[in-house]
């Protein structure tokens, strides 16, 4: 189980459309901002790595002291980014695949505008449940 984890979905225009602080550790007040900053900087690495491999799961693209950034790039260039300190690579991959399916269900909603913020509480609940299950 990851002590610290921050999960962000970044749309194809580099705008974050979903943010969630998942993990079991007690959160500091300013941790969310630092986590967002680290994931934002990791986008530089993803833009180089995404075009060099055909795999969706990019594993560990960046490290920040003890924190690792894992990224999953969808076919539409939406990036699922996770900042974590655990070493459970298989669990992280499964987590990404499950969230990707949830994201596809969101996209199938005709009332949802691709690229806008995901405000579905059902989606949020499921993502947090998957985080507890796999991370």
């Amino acid at each position: 189980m990851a002590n610290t984890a921050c999960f962000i979905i970044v749309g194809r225009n580099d705008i974050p459309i979903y943010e969630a602080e998942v993990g079991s550790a007690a959160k500091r007040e300013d941790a969310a901002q630092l986590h967002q900053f680290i994931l934002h900087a990791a986008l530089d690495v993803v833009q180089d790595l995404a075009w060099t491999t055909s795999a969706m799961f990019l594993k560990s693209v960046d490290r920040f002291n003890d924190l690792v950034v894992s990224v999953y790039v969808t076919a539409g260039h939406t990036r699922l980014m996770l900042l974590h300190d655990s070493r459970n690579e298989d669990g992280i991959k499964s987590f990404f695949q499950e969230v990707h399916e949830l994201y596809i269900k969101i996209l199938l909603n005709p009332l949802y505008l691709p690229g806008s913020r995901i405000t579905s509480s059902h989606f949020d609940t499921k993502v947090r449940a998957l985080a507890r299950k796999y991370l």
Partner: protein
Amino acid sequence: MANYLAQFQTIKNSCDRLVAAVEDVCDLWPTVKGLFEEHQPLKRAFLTNKTRNPVFVENLPVEFILTTDARLRSRFPQEQYLFWFREPYATIVLVTCEDLDEFKNILKPRLKLIVQNDEREWFIVFVSKAHPSNDQATKNVKKVYAKLEVDFSSKKRERCCKLDVHGPEGNFWEDLELKITECIRNTLDRRAQFYEDEIRKLSEQRFMPIWNFCNFFILKESLAFIFEMAHLHEDALREYDELELCYLETVNMPGKQRDFGGFDGEDDQAVLLKPGSKPLTQIVQDDSFREFEFRQYLFACQSRLLFKLNRPFEVASRGYSFVISFAKALTLHESVLPFCMREVWVITACLALIEATASHHHDGVVAPDIEKEFFRLQGDLYSLSRVKFMRLGYLIGYGTDIEKSPLNSACLSMLPWPKPAVWPSLPQDASSEVLEKEKTILQATSRTKHFGIQRKALPLEPSVLLRVANRRRASLSTGNIPEMFDGRPSFTEGSGLEASPRTPSSLKVQAPPMSRTNSSPGNFESPLDRPMRLAEIFVAAEHALRLTISDHDLLKTLSSIQDFENKYLNLTKGAAENYHRSWWKRHGVVLDGEIAAVCFKHGKYDLAANSYEKVCALYAGEGWQDLLAEVLPNLAQCQKILDDQAGYMSSCVRLLSLDKGLFSSKERQAFQSEVVTLAHSEMKNPVPLDVSSLITFSGNTGPPLQLCDGDPGNLSVTVWSGFPDDITLDSLSLTLVATNNTDEGGQALKSSAATVLNPGRNTITFALPPQKPGSYVLGVVTGQIGRLRFRSHSFSKGGPADSDDFMSYEKPTRPILKVSKPRALVDLAAAVSSALLINEAQWIGIIVRPIAYSLKGAILHIDTGPGLKIEDSYGIEMERYMDADCDTGASKAEVFVEDSPVSSKRDSEVLNLCDGKIVFSDWASNVSSILWVPVRALSEKLARGSSSVTPLKQDILEGMRTVALKLEFGVHHNQIFERTIAAHFTDPFDVTTRVANKCNDGTLVLQVMLHSLVKANLIVLDVWLDLQDGFIHGQNDGRPTSTFFPLVVSPGSRAAVVFSICLDKSMSSEGKDLQLPESILNIKYGIHGDRAAGAHRPVDADHSETDTEGRDLVFKSAIVLQRPVLDPCLTVGFLPLPSDGLRVGKLITMQWRVERLKELKESEAVEQQHDEVLYEVNANSENWMIAGRKRGHVSLSEEQGSRVVISILCVPLVAGYVRPPQLGLPNVEEANVSSNPSGPHLVCVLPPLLSSSYCLPVK
């Protein structure tokens, strides 16, 4: 073999190139040495690498040394194999001989003795000294050389070449180079094989106790050195890589515990690029080397080779990984290393790598993607050194000057503290420095944020420094337990930064232990064991760092805040620049933000504003609002200080546009007050401001507003305000854009007065002037606050009414206004198309039919044309009109008439005409209605009858009348409809007369036919005729002969009455004037008709309910009666011709009889003579010859019946049918002359007879 290490290193330092031995048999080397050295290094050497593949080496240097040289002579045989890399790689034998016998006897045996050693690679250079002019010597030299070749060269390999000192052959040097290269290649292969065999033997002992890494290292590096001397850098690099792997394996072996190293004087400076900084004998340890020095030595060797291969990128890449992994090794041994050894080493290592790789890098040499990767590595190295430098600065008390940005906070707060075995303690004589440091801490006050933002500062510590330093200190304390407990309260004071403003309270906390310590006489060491304050920690760390850092430049950068900031700024700029060049824009822009923070602190606001704008553009463009909220207040503050009003306004609007959770409502109100204050101030050059994210708008839900062309209206728009408070707009405009014509600009609608926008939803109503036909969508909302002109071009959701989410991405293009094309909105038509009675009061029906448009409040102007006037004494009736076909309409009208008393209040009304116009009632707004207007057609002309002889065509235009109608309707009476209605008026009857019969007594029977011209039943009550002069009535005195009145004439039918009249014979009375030139037919009649069908009863008859019959109508028509045309007074009769016929030349008597029928009138008698009649004979002179009088008077009595015969003689002149002579009476009108009997038209004339009077017989 440890003693070999020093010797090995000495030998290695003295060798730097391959050696070729020169065996000078005939003392030729001084002569040819210059020539040999001119042609080195070898231009194109083909060598073989470790995997037996040919490698092309350019410019391979070779050193020529005589075999008698001291460097080759003084070596012991037992050492040759170990240091075999330094032995010669080729042996060149120099010989010369000009005598064949001398060669056979002396030189040949000596050469064979020299070359018998098969381990050496050799070849013979035959030097010829013969001058070309000496033919005999040349021949002898050739013979000797040919013999030499036969003896020493074999089929497999040529070992001889010839050098002519006076004129060498063209390919001699190439041949020499080939032979040297071949020797070197063979020797190299043999020696590499030897070393590899030895290495393999030692590797097999790797896990045995007798394993000695030094021996392995000597062999491995010898092999690498061989490759390096041969310029096979790839192979040399591979050897060093394998050596590194083997060494790491040895280091990680769990058996032995070795010293790490790093305790020498200048070990804090990284030497990873200087292999010779420390001799190997110094770092040797038992059978291996110290890790600290040896790993750097290996990396230095690898870097040297990579630089020779011209690959600085790979040096940077390996260097970064090496720094990371070596730092981990330093972390493992941190407790025994000097204080902050790891941080200092990393800084110096990164800076050395940056400098070395940058100097070896040349732009454009490598591929663009590799170049980008190179710059990224440079940026990473800069960032890494920057982080360590900040950590050092924080430890010595410069933390208050480090910007607490997300970047610095993330770097420092997630980096663990250094973990020395014992935290450095305070020196004895450092009290003054402690006081100085405390003063600095007290003076350092945090910069107050603009707008009063109370955002909590991000941490720069992974944990509380005060606790960490004192815990390590307390764990080694030798004091008693009560004093340790007394020191505990200082641990719970919070973070280190929060302790700085609470230093006075900290001093108070520290006071009691000190007093108690002094009061205890038995414990002398207590003052040294008390917990340190923050300032003391800083001073102690500074002193410890001075012992650790040996680099004077680095030490200087930490000596003062200014120097620290300069170094910090240089590192930040280096990182930012390299990240920008590697296209990692986020890393680069974030570091630009750090540069901006330093510029801001030093008052360089323009530079700070430029950098902050980049950061804000990055975060805003990508929608990372949490990060934008951190930087945007700084940009706003810079813009305000620089008096950039436009930028400052824009920043405040963007601050207001961020999510509400990022700032408190009080802060957002501050933003708004800044906007409003600046808007109402005197701005130098007001610029339009885009507030699309704050003020959004949408149309109201439901269908769009439907208007017709020319209609004004009111348009309601929902405007959402993102301002936290009410805001007053001086003016507000809305642009409508037509969707079918994108070239046309939108039309602006202005709100009438100042508008106050409340937070959230507002409904604004705009007055809408008439628009062109089309479909309109909302365009841009513009307005003015003070002198500020703003615009907003985004839409908010038109969803639920209570939704306040106006930051949606939805941009609906639903039309809000639709203006119909010009169409008929109303129709005015005549209800009756048939004719009405002229000169009588009649109802004109006007049908008013609205076409999907309301006629509420409509005004109808009625203007009659010439010959028509409105009967003002009666009102205008308005009724509901049934729009159906003619028959059904008629029947419904009848039904309607029957029901009119029941629903008169709802469906009919009497309107009064005021100033030529009437106002419609409300009930007639949406239904078809009919207006009955009482009018009278005026005509002064008297109707004229026609006779059967000359029918009179009726002129239709005579009965035409026009009514001009103008209808004003619409909400503001803006719609105008004009139409002119034509109405037909006519007389009730068309009168035609003819003479039916003529009696013997001169009485005429006159028939008068009446033809009905209207669609109504006409009831003829009485008819009488007033005769003109010349005629008198018969028996009935002007009345018809029959009396069948009342006579009903149906529409379109005919009726006839008969009158008896006589010619008036009393014309001879003199002095009587003509009183009546025409006859007048008078008809008294009534009419039964419906006004919906055509002619009807006059208007006043409807109102007099008591008088059912009403007033009788009188119709007058003029009739012209002419006297008979034929009225003979005289008659001329032609008397018959004789029966024997006419013959040419024969005289004939023609006779006419003239007879008087009646007396002439008095007027005619005056002109004529009373008893004579003038006659005249007319004949064609070519056909007739008249004998006698052609013209004359005859006496004829005036009495009736008198006769006279006129006779003339005439001779026919032409045979055939000819016209006979005619008798005419010139003085009598033709009307008064008749022919009875009439004469023939043609007569037959026979040819003349033959005459015998002129023929005499011959006797």
